[in-house]
């Protein structure tokens, strides 16, 4: 058994080494794949705050992923066409600057998560799963039938947005940026888990009655967790949109929400680096299995089933043994 800390370090190094190797050997597509892993991992890390730490099984996180994506799409679209976002009561222009877009993406998805959380956290268990799913679908159908920003066609952004001091069009530099964001969010996530809030949230997951009996409001804790979680997933959405230079309603589809959960499960529920491992494994499988058979999703399904039924700790659990309490 390996200490989880060293395993985490190895994971981050591997995620860095693969694209660097690809950069040296001029395999830009591998860098793109690694970037995709990092972004999906980021979305998973966001969900894991709600799901792993808070025990909130959200089947609607695609809503925040999509909102982040559309925050990028809409801002960049207006900048690209030189049309203002709105003129009255005050002028808002589009932008091609990543930091601004990220900020908007985080704020918008946090706001949405707060509103959705306010309604859906009144419910628990299956009701919570289903109502988050329904909210996700609401966004999905809304974007499809809302004509202003392309409807089902989505929005294409021809040139990747800029970040001060970097050439984001260069795959390895964009990867570096995404990797940096992922690392920061992982640190934040670890800090959060060890903070006062993290302690109380984790306790609320295990025993709501206990938390209430010491005078802490479990609902408020969960609402905050859900909001932060949504914000991070929204940030991932903005990055994904920039990777693809494209946004569309499929970012809101419930399959997306399902895949986020799959990352977490493959890696190991509640593990800080679970989503990173899960996303990596998912992308690798997609490529290996996809190369073997047109019906690769059957094998993916079978593997997923096997992990759920027989390997509950996920991949990290298999290597580092059962989880130990944070202290």
């Amino acid at each position, binding site marked *: 058994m390996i200490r989880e800390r060293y395993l985490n370090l190895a994971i981050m190094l591997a995620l860095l080494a693969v694209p660097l190797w690809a950069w040296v050997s001029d395999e830009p597509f591998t860098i793109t794949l690694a970037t995709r892993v990092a972004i999906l991992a980021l979305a998973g890390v966001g969900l894991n705050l709600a799901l792993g730490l808070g025990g909130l099984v959200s089947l609607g996180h695609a809503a925040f992923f999509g909102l982040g994506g559309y925050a990028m799409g809409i801002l960049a679209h207006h900048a690209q066409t030189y049309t203002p976002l709105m003129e009255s009561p005050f002028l808002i222009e589009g932008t091609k600057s990543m930091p601004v877009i990220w900020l908007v993406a985080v704020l918008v998805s946090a706001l949405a998560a707060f509103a959705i959380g306010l309604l859906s956290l009144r419910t628990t268990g299956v009701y919570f799963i289903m109502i988050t799913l329904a909210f996700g679908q609401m966004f999905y159908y809304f974007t499809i039938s809302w004509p202003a920003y392309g409807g089902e*066609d*989505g929005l294409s952004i021809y040139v990747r947005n800029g970040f001060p001091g970097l050439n984001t069009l260069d795959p390895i530099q964009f990867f570096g940026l995404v990797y940096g964001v992922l690392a920061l969010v992982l640190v934040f996530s670890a800090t959060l888990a060890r903070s006062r809030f993290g302690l109380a949230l984790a306790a609320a997951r295990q025993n709501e009655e206990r938390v209430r009996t010491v005078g802490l409001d479990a609902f408020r804790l969960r609402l905050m967790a859900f909001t932060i979680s949504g914000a991070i997933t929204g940030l991932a959405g903005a990055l994904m949109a920039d990777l693809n230079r494209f946004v569309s309603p499929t970012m809101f589809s419930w399959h997306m929400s399902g895949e986020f959960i799959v990352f977490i499960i493959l890696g190991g529920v509640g593990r800080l680096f679970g989503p990173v491992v899960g996303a990596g494994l998912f992308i690798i499988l997609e490529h290996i299995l996809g190369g073997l058979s047109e019906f690769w999703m059957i094998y993916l399904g079978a593997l997923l089933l096997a992990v759920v039924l027989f390997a509950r700790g996920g991949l990290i659990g298999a290597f580092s043994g059962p989880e130990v309490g944070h202290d």
Partner: protein
Amino acid sequence: MKFRTLLAAASVAALGVAAQAEGVKVGMITTLSGGGAGLGIDVRDGFLLAVKQSGRDDIEVVVEDDQRKPEIAVQLADKLIQSEKVDVMTGIIWSNLAMAVVPAATAQGKFYLSPNAGPSALAGRGCHENYFNVSWQNDAFNEAAGAWTSENGIGKVFLMAPNYPAGKDMIAGFKRFFKGEVTEEVYTKLGQQDYAAEIAQMRASDADLVYYFLPGGMGISFMKQYAGSGADKAVMGPAFSFDQGILGAIGEAALGVKNTAHWSKDLDVPGNAEFVASFQAEYGRLPSLYAAQGFDTGLLVASAASKADVGDADAFRAALKEADFQSVRGAFKFGANNHPIQNIYMREVVKEGDIVTNRVIGTAATDHTDAYVGDCKM
């Protein structure tokens, strides 16, 4: 997602093909799994059949499955361009996927040949010298249908399409050439499967004709429900809801329905009968509209490859623009915006033996060109 089909033979010299700097590498992104996979499979099979029949061994095709997800398509495009270093791209079935992939691909200097789908944005202001549409502009079949409807003295029409951009394009196309009155215009939810509410409206309407665009399963559901509803209005639509793959699922409910298309398997033009026979021999099923488009796209690549070296982009582009191949649709050439100028035919669903299929009954539009060519500044 890698279905690599290597058609390059072992030795160029052994087969005596004129020495060229390099062959053409084609990257095909199409839908091979999930919903709508039938269309992609037909395009792929038609394309590969054309390449095979061309006898050229310098065309290599890499086929990838986009699962009908735009994100996947974009990633595959990155892969084909960055990793496989293809020269020509093709294969995308859906407008929204095309909008995601094509602008970026052409901006990176790749050729893109559309074997299906022609969003208006790519025909007008967003046109590009490296983008060739070998199928149709989205509005085309509908414009022809609108013209035909007016010419045949039908005055009142009920219009229906899903509430998404392609649906609205199609309805706009019909209205552009239709001179009569639109009594109702209904937009349904994308993916909707139950049309009882809309059919009730149709029966209550005083329109003479129901014109609708509902691709894939939506069209199947609608037609089956319409036929059982007792509604007696004539029905018409673009060919997408009445193509071979779909008629099998609708069955006799579709008999008599008119639809517009640029191709039909009974179309009497040189090469078409041979195409239908060879496709059937190769794959054991009747070719669809999509197979025909894939086939023509394959012919186009082969014709351009025989005229120019793909390394010389200007020469290759000129060779593509000549469209010097025997289209299974008959006369075919590219307009100023690299979109087809072609005939659009009116077809009727008939029964041949046990098989429900289409028959050409007339020409709805001759040498039809799209409405956006004027917006294209190329």
